[in-house]
């Protein structure tokens, strides 16, 4: 058996500044060195190390079909991320993974898709979005609707790609911010309110949510109210996942470990788990 705690060396080939309001989110494009690679599926995560500082878990943010590089979108919020935000292209970091389960991309085939993301919650859904957008895969899924929310216009991540996303066949994207701004022609208001205005084929839709816990809770309750089965409302959870491999004992909710049984759960599963996340 191989040592699950040993990371691979990777180079930061590009650092992309994401937000304009706090400048606290950056997307890191990484290439593995020494012949390393990492095949993953949407929903999975890695443990990223900066030697001497520590290690922390991050969800993949790039397409799993991209074999050239992987991307992680990271907010400056703790020890490791603070150190990471001071790194420039060319710096070396260490990564191990992929860990965790995946969005059920096979089961979702044939269904319409509703993506609802708040702020940085869009990052772990981007691998799924880009996977479904891929030419080989697009026809396997029905219409893709998205409700993308941010506090302000400056807080949308991946804004540079939205135009391209909108042009993908059978795709409709609604944008919303918390408060009105001059020149804004999207929606204003919270996703759980706006979701009622959307045309959702409840008999044939998978909803995928990620964002602040309060948003996930309100939106999923609204979707259940509209008649979407709990099994078809998916989300991905965060926990203090130190080891990523079900040993360190930090990320359990009841007997389930977010690092190996998750991070992707559906609302039917979550409603049966103790409320401790």
């Amino acid at each position, binding site marked *: *058996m*191989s*040592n699950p705690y040993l990371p691979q060396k990777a180079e930061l080939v590009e650092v992309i500044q994401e937000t304009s309001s706090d400048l606290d989110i950056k997307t890191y494009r990484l290439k593995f060195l020494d012949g390393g690679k990492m095949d993953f599926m949407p929903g999975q995560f890695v443990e990223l190390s900066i030697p*001497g500082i520590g290690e922390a878990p991050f969800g993949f943010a790039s397409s799993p079909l991209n074999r050239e590089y992987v991307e992680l979108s990271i907010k400056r919020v703790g020890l490791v991320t603070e150190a990471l935000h001071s790194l420039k292209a060319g710096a070396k970091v260490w990564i191990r993974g992929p860990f965790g389960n995946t969005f059920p991309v096979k089961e979702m085939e044939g269904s319409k898709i509703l993506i609802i993301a708040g702020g940085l919650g869009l990052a772990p859904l981007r691998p799924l979005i880009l996977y479904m957008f891929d030419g080989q895969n697009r026809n396997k899924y029905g219409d893709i609707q998205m409700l993308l929310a941010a506090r302000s216009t400056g807080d949308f991540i991946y804004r540079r790609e939205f135009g391209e996303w909108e042009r993908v066949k059978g795709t409709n994207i609604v944008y919303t911010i918390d408060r009105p701004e001059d020149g804004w022609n999207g929606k204003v208001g919270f996703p759980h309110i706006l979701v009622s205005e959307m045309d959702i084929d409840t008999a044939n839709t998978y909803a995928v949510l990620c964002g602040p816990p309060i948003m996930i809770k309100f939106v999923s309750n609204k979707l259940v109210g509209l008649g979407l089965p709990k099994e078809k409302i998916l989300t991905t959870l965060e926990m*203090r996942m130190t080891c990523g*491999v079900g*040993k360190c004992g930090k990320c*359990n909710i009841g007997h389930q470990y977010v690092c190996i049984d998750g991070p992707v759960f559906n609302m039917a599963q979550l409603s049966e788990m103790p409320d*401790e996340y």
Partner: protein
Amino acid sequence: MMAHAVVPKDRLREILGSLLGKYRLVAPVREGSTLVYKEVNNVDDVVLGDDIPYKSPKEFLFPQVEKIMTFSKDGELKPNEEAPETIIVGVKPCDLEALKVMTAVFTKGKYVDTYFERKLKNTLLIGLGCKSEKPGCFCAERGINREYSSACDIFLTDEGDSFTATVISDKGRDVLKDFDLERKDRQETDQNESSQAPVLDIDADENTLFNNTNWDGISEKCLGCGTCAFVCPTCHCFEFKDVVVKGEAIRYRCWDSCMYPKFTLHASGHNPRPSKKERYRQRVMHKYLYVKQNFGYVACTGCGRCIRSCPVGMNIKSVVSEIMEELK
């Protein structure tokens, strides 16, 4: 096939002495008035009596602080995978039961903790039965026979001037094969693995136990010091910590405890277990329910160490009894 041998106590000391050069020998020794497992260099220090050591010997398989890898100055990664050939002698049946739990957690499932696995593979376990129950002990209520366990390579039963050595594994037979020992006939029925079904056991639905138990009241006097986790033979939670020494980054793995607020704290400031109520609930439910759901073992052996060590007299045996009473 299990074999039994008579080993006079002086002879056992000689045998251990002759194995000293070849193996790291870990045994109970006195430190002041406290009995602890330590690496010994002189077999005269080994104490194979009825007393139960202050902590279990888990730290020789899962050290409290373990250097797991080094990131060198020139950007190379060097894992520290050393696992010396070790004999641990005098391991009590409760602690052998605890090692079953540790082994399941670290080696079962999709991933194997290679640090634990390698140390376990290179360790020979010599068990030792207990004659009497000590204050705080409740192994019998947990269905563990304090006199015998087969979860080791060789098991010793104190017969006064000699030990009866039950040779259980091939590894145990091999280590003793060069010593000319007197074989002994013994009824296998003398040695039952388990004396009885556990009477202290929680049979409840996860959500019922989580929501319908008076965790506030139960945890009221807990100080959150974490001593219980540090003396527990089955606690296995950990955190990584990097330390920079002369330009090299050394990654350590350190014991952690669910009793501490930072154990589950997110970088965002969110904490899923913000108070001792949630943290103590996790301790009890992890031991008595979650490990059983995931691996089939209750992660409490009744060794009594947390009860003997708690500064405010928290008692997991009475807590579990109280919960069982409430669930009736």
